[in-house]
C-alpha cells in the first residue's frame, strides 16, 4: 500500500509539472514581482534602486492616476446597470419562445449573443465606421454632424454603448441559465392559484433570479473595471484624457515612459480594487449556497 501511495505521488508530480511550471513562471512569479517592482525605481527592462513606499506616495498625490480611476468608474457606471438590466430583459424575451416556438427562441438567443464572440478590434472597427463624422450611418440617421470620439461629453458614453452591444449577450446567457433553473412546477402551482403576468414575475421569477442578478452585477463590475482595449483603440484615451482608464495609465507609464516601478504601483492599486470586489462576490455566492 505504501508503495502505491509513493507511486501515486510521483505520477501526480509528473501530471502537475507542466501546469505548475507555467503557473509559477507566468502567474505566481509576476504577482510577486509586481509587488517588488512597486517598491523600486525601475525601467521596463532594468531594476534599479529600492525606494520603499515612494511610488505609493507619488500615486496618492498623482492627479493623473485619480482621474484615470475616475474614468474607470465612470465607464463602469455607464455599463454595469444597462448591461445587467438589458441582459435580464433579453433573457426574459428569449425565454418566452418555448414549445413550438423554440426555434425562434434559439435564433433570438444567437442574434443577441453573436457580437460577444467578435474580437474587440472588429467591434471597434465597425463602431468607428458607423460613427464617422461625415459618412457615418449614425450621423446620417440622426441628421447631425458630430465627431463622437473627439467630443468630451460623448466619447465615454459612446464607448459604453458600443460595449453594451458587444457584451450584453453574455449577461443574457447567465440570466437564461438562471431562468431555466426555476422548476416548472412553481409556475404551474402559481397558475393554479390564478397568478399571471406581472404577478408571476414578481413572486416566482424575480426571487429566483435575485442571486443570479447579484452574480451578474459583480461579474460585470469586475469586467468593466478591467476596461482597456475599447477606450485604447477607439479614443486612445482622448479627448483630453477623458477616456484614459487606469489600465491605460498603467500601460502608458510602463511601456511609453518606461517607468515600470511606478506602473507596478498603479497595478497594485488596481489589483486591490478588483480583488476586493472579487472577494465580495465570493462572499455573496457563498451566501447563496
Amino acid at each position, binding site marked *: 500500500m505504501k508503495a502505491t501511495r509513493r507511486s*501515486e*505521488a510521483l*505520477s*501526480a508530480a509528473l*501530471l*502537475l509539472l*507542466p*501546469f505548475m511550471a*507555467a*503557473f509559477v*513562471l*507566468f*502567474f*505566481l*512569479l509576476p*504577482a510577486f*514581482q509586481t509587488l517588488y*517592482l512597486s517598491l523600486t525605481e525601475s525601467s*521596463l*527592462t532594468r531594476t534599479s534602486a529600492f525606494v520603499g513606499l515612494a511610488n505609493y506616495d507619488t500615486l496618492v498625490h498623482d492627479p493623473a492616476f485619480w482621474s484615470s480611476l475616475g474614468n474607470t468608474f465612470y465607464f463602469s457606471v455607464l455599463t454595469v446597470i444597462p448591461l445587467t438590466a438589458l441582459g435580464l430583459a433579453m433573457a426574459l*424575451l*428569449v425565454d*418566452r*419562445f418555448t414549445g413550438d416556438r423554440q426555434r425562434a427562441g*434559439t435564433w*433570438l438567443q444567437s*442574434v*443577441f*449573443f*453573436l*457580437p460577444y*464572440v*467578435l*474580437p474587440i*478590434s*472588429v467591434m*471597434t*472597427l*465597425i463602431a468607428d*465606421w*458607423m460613427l464617422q463624422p461625415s459618412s457615418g*450611418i449614425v450621423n*446620417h440617421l440622426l441628421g447631425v454632424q458630430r465627431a463622437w470620439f473627439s467630443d468630451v461629453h460623448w466619447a465615454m458614453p459612446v464607448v459604453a454603448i458600443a460595449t453594451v452591444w458587444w457584451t450584453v449577450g*453574455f449577461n443574457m446567457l*447567465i440570466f437564461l*441559465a438562471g431562468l431555466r433553473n426555476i422548476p416548472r412546477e412553481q409556475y404551474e402551482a402559481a397558475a393554479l392559484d390564478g397568478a*399571471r*403576468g406581472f404577478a408571476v414575475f414578481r413572486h416566482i421569477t424575480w426571487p429566483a433570479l435575485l442571486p443570479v442578478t447579484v*452574480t451578474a452585477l459583480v461579474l460585470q463590475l*469586475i469586467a468593466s473595471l*478591467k476596461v482597456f*482595449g475599447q477606450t485604447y*483603440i477607439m479614443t486612445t484615451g482622448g479627448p483630453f484624457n477623458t477616456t484614459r482608464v487606469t*489600465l491605460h495609465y498603467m500601460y502608458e507609464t*510602463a*511601456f511609453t515612459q518606461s517607468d*515600470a516601478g511606478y506602473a507596478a504601483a498603479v497595478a497594485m492599486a*488596481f*489589483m486591490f480594487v478588483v480583488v476586493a470586489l472579487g*472577494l465580495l462576490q465570493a462572499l455573496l455566492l457563498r451566501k447563496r449556497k
Partner: protein
Amino acid sequence: MKHTQLHWTVIAIAAALSLAMLWVAPLLWALSTSLRPEYETISPVLHYLPRRWTVEAYAKVLGAGNVPRWLFNSALVALAVTVATMAISLMAAFAFSQLRFRGRNLLFLLSMLALLLPFEALLVPLFRTMNGLGLINTYAGIVLPQVVSPVVIYVFRQFFDAVPHDFRDAALLDGASPLRVLWSVYLPMSGNIVWAMAIVTFIGAWNNFLWPFIIVTSNDMMTIPLGLTQTYDAFGVRYAQLMAAALLGAFPVALAYIVFQRRVTQGLLAATGLKG
C-alpha cells in the same frame, strides 16, 4: 384574461424583433460596406445596399498586405493555446481530483488564487519575464502565458470528482498508469465538457487582444485582432477593405459559435461556475 395574455405576447414579439434588428444591424452594415467598390463608401449619398455588388475588397485584403499572415498567425496561436491548455489542464485536474499526495489541497487553492488576481495587473513583470527569456515577437511568447487557465482546471476537476472512484480503482488495480487511466477511462466520459472548454478556449485565444498587444511589436508576428488595429496605416481610409478585413477576422469565431452553439454556451456557463 385571454385578451391580456395575447396583448403581452404581441408586445414581447415586437420588442424581440426590434431588439434583434438593432443587434444585427451593425453586422449587416459592415457586410454591406464590405461588398461595395471603395468609391461608394465615401459617396455623399448613403445607400443601405451596394449600388454595385463586388467582392473586390475581399480580394484586395486577401491578395496583398498582411491580413493573410495575421490570419495564419491567429489560427496557429489559437490552435496551439487550445491544445496545450486542454492537455496540461486535463493532467493537472486529474491529479488534483484522483491522486493522493501531500499538499494537494494547498496547491489547488494556490492555483485557484489566479482566478482572483486580474491578469492585467501582471502585464509589466510578465513582459519583463518574457523579455528575459528572449520570447518577445515569438509564437512561444504569445502562446505560453495563455495556457495557464485555472478556470479550465477547476471545471475539469469538478467533473472528475463526480466520477465514481470504482472506475479509477479497477483500472489502477489492473496495473494501468494514471495517464493511461485518464486517457482511456476518464477522457471518453468527459467528451462533452472537454469539447465545450476547448471551443471556448479557442474563441478566447483567437480574440485575445491585450497579451499579443504587449508581446508583439513586429507586423509579421501580429494576430488578426491586433493587426486590425493597424489597418488604417495599411489601407489608408479604405472602408470597404477595412470591413472586409474585420469580417474575415471575425469569421472563424463566428463560425465556431454558430456550429457549436450549445457547447460554447455550456462552456461559458461552466467557466463562470453557474452550471456544471
